[in-house]
């Protein structure tokens, strides 16, 4: 069960960070007129295509004692990054980036441009327009982004194995734990964990989709009302 809790903690951290970084990044990608934008779009989408082991391999090099990330981390916090929970979080953020950014871009782009024009002529700057019009109307996209990055992180295996190794309580996530048990022919242990992961994932997704459906087309409005009334 320790491994399952670790996986959930990792997924929660990763989705929180992805929302914080993904929202500005997606907004920029949705609105920028920059010619070289396609390059950044390709970089963001790379984790969709690359095998997790390839991504994990490069992340491992970057996080190693001689890699740029590893050195930076060492200078800032006085310890290494590879085979730590923090390293796992960073690698998972990169790995799940497209799963957060794509739905956010789609949500931001689907907001009627006329609403943005209306906001501007009513005196609102871009930041205010974003907070009061774009974001509230993109709530279903934000929810989707959070769910996808959570689910994707929960289920990851290759990247974790490359970057995190297999340290009990630190980097041994549930998928690795299951693999270990199977390797050691502890099928009952493995099936207990697998079932727990299956059940947990299903319940989380059911709650999110159920709530989203309840909110329906007024998702933005209701959540916004709750938020504004606080």
């Amino acid at each position, binding site marked *: 069960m320790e491994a399952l809790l670790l996986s959930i903690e990792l997924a929660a951290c990763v989705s929180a960070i992805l929302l914080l970084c993904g929202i500005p990044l997606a907004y920029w990608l949705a609105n920028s007129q920059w010619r070289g934008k396609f390059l950044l779009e390709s970089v963001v989408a790379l984790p969709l295509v690359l095998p997790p082991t390839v991504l994990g391999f490069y992340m491992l090099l970057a996080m190693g004692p001689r890699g740029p990330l590893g050195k930076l981390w060492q200078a800032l916090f006085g310890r290494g990054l590879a085979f730590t929970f923090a390293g796992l979080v960073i690698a998972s953020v990169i790995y799940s980036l497209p799963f957060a950014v794509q739905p956010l871009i789609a949500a931001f782009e689907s907001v009627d441009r*006329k609403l943005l024009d209306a906001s501007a002529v*009513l*005196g609102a700057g871009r930041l205010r327009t974003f907070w*009061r019009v774009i974001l509230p109307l993109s709530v279903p996209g934000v929810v989707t982004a959070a769910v996808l990055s959570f689910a994707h992180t929960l289920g990851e295996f290759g990247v974790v194995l490359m970057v995190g190794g297999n340290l009990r309580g630190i980097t041994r996530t549930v998928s690795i734990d299951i693999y270990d048990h199977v390797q050691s022919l502890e099928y009952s242990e493995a099936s207990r964990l697998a079932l727990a992961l299956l059940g947990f994932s299903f319940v989380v997704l059911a709650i999110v989709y159920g709530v989203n459906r309840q909110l329906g087309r007024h998702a933005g409005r209701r959540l916004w009302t709750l938020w504004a009334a606080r």
Partner: protein
Amino acid sequence: MDTVGGQVNGAVLTAQVRKERRDSAAPFVLDISLEIPSGITILFGPSGAGKSTLLDCLAGLVQPDAARIAIGGEVLFDSSSRTNLPSQKRRIAYVFQSLALFPHLNVEDNVTYGLTHLQQQERRARAREVLAAFRVENLKSRQPGEISGGEKQRVALARSLVTLPRLLLLDEPLTGLDAELKAAIVADLRAWNAAQRIPILYVTHSRDEVDALGERVIAMDHGRIVSAGTPQEVLEAPRRKRLAQAAGFENFLRGTVMDVREADGVMRVRLEASACEIEVPLGYASAGSRAQIAIRAGDILLATEPPRGLSARNVLAGRIVSLDQRGTLVVARVDCGVVFTVHVTPGAARALALALEQKVWLVLKTHSCHLVDD
């Protein structure tokens, strides 16, 4: 700028705008110079004439290639001095055809959206006042999705006027409303503007709206102003064919001038590809020259027997080739060698028992035949 003194009120909009559009389906160059005093001015023209582009340039949503836009003494945009006030600082209200009410905010929050610089209490009070002026105060806690089309249009007007703008742009804001409701909303708008006295630029392509609203009309086509004046002046004597189409002329006929009778004030024109000759008002044309004539479908009389004892000079025999009921209108197409479109009421169509292939006579008053330039 927060002053709303007498100097701003009643200020005149002056604008010279040039903007090339190549991207759209109908590329054109907008090249216009306007001076709009306070009160309603109608901007009239067919779709694609550049009306909305002009409004977008004035509001700062589209950047013109070259322009000078000023209200009263204040310059909003000037390409020669590189002045370009962003939209949110122009204090121009703009009601789009789609209205663009924020779907996630209730009516009151929509209306107070532009008032962030005020205290909440002051905001509420201002919203209440303007909602009352447009008779939708009772809707303030409703969502835009829960109110009717006409109510939405009133809320959109209230939202844009609550900020005390110095210019109001309306892009076909009242389409889809019946005439009575339209007139009521316009009356409220006029009442509101009696105190504010700002210029209002009202875009429409509907001839009926021009008749109902306009004291001043500017007609646009292909990105240029083609005429300006009272609705009568602009609509009754369209000078260009495309504008005539927008102004409700369904029939365009080409022909050759046969003779010019100065004394009678008429000329006879033989219609192209037919033996029909009709008498039209005197124009700048000489015998043998080509002419184009526009006639409204509603100006043509239809008779099922040869008419007698009429003052009208033009009576053409033909047969009905199609009959089509469109709402409260029956559209008949009559082949007299040239095919005419004629509008009659459903009652008249029934009384005359109009039917396909029936022989009929068309009566055209000379002064219903308008000469238009090519």
